[in-house]
């Protein structure tokens, strides 16, 4: 007997994300988790700049378009104003880990009771595929046309590990969208992050490693293969800080 499944109303409107973009999965999972947790009328979403802006076509709740990178600071202001409302951010790797690295880390440092969701697709997508701090070694992007030279630009940054390893936070995890099994695990991570906030435990962050077929210059299915071959071995999945404050 099948379980009825329908895209939740909170995030149910059609979007203009590219075909095969991982944002669409996160959009649906956020809608499902918020609705299942009874928070769909108790949430303010702070949106980053980039492909994240497109979330506003799907999402029907209260939202704030934050300046580029500042999502964690804006979400902090929201949470301090309305402590009983779920305050979450919806950002990309360019937004939260590059220009916004200070705000993302400092909110974790202070253990602000917000939930930060970061779609990591290894480039600045909306502006046409420039290198971001999570771009893989030798990955060709619009600003690394011969492939990323990590000797000059650094190795791809691992922010969940950085936060879990250095700050007292409530929950930190990394998931992905490559198949049904991973998507179900990711949904569990998102639920944990939101539940940590609802229970007042502190800062939560979930990174979602995602395909970007358009800027990787591949089909959607080729992008999934690329992730399995090269990206996921580097960006390992799992819970780096579990609820209850245990560090991984």
């Amino acid at each position: 007997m099948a379980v009825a499944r329908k895209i939740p109303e909170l995030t149910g409107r059609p979007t203009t994300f590219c075909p095969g973009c991982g944002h669409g999965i996160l959009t649906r999972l956020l809608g499902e988790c918020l609705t299942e947790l009874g928070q769909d009328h108790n949430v303010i979403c702070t949106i980053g700049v980039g492909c994240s802006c497109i979330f506003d076509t799907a999402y029907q709740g209260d939202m704030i378009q934050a300046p580029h990178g500042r999502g964690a600071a804006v979400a902090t202001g929201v949470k301090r104003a309305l402590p009983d409302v779920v305050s979450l951010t919806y950002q990309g790797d360019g937004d939260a880990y590059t220009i916004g690295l200070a705000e993302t880390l400092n909110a974790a440092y202070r253990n602000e009771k917000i939930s930060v969701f970061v779609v990591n697709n290894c480039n600045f997508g909306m502006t046409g595929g420039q290198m971001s701090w999570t771009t893989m070694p030798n990955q060709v992007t619009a600003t690394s046309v011969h492939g990323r030279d990590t000797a000059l630009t650094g190795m791809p940054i691992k922010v969940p590990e950085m936060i879990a390893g250095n700050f007292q936070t409530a929950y930190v995890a990394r998931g992905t969208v490559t198949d049904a099994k991973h998507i179900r695990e990711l949904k569990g991570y998102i639920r944990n992050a939101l539940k940590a906030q609802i229970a007042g435990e502190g800062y939560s962050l979930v990174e979602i490693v995602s395909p970007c077929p358009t800027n990787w210059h591949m089909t959607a299915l080729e992008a999934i293969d690329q992730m399995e071959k090269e990206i996921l071995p580097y960006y390992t999945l799992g819970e780096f800080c579990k609820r209850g404050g245990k560090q991984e």
Partner: protein
Amino acid sequence: MSEVVVSESRCKSCGFCVKNCPKGAISLAHSFNSAGYKYAVVDSEKCIVCGICYTVCPDGVFEIRE
């Protein structure tokens, strides 16, 4: 009677459903939806209404009805 209902207009031909369907019940149509994409088509003979297509679809194309 359980079934999978497809919203053709939402489909962007990414192919995740085709790849992940355990019964190979999904294919992409030969014709286009209004956005110019070849939309997903479910063969109800093969479909076991497992819901994996709903899970892997980024665009909310599938609805599983009991």
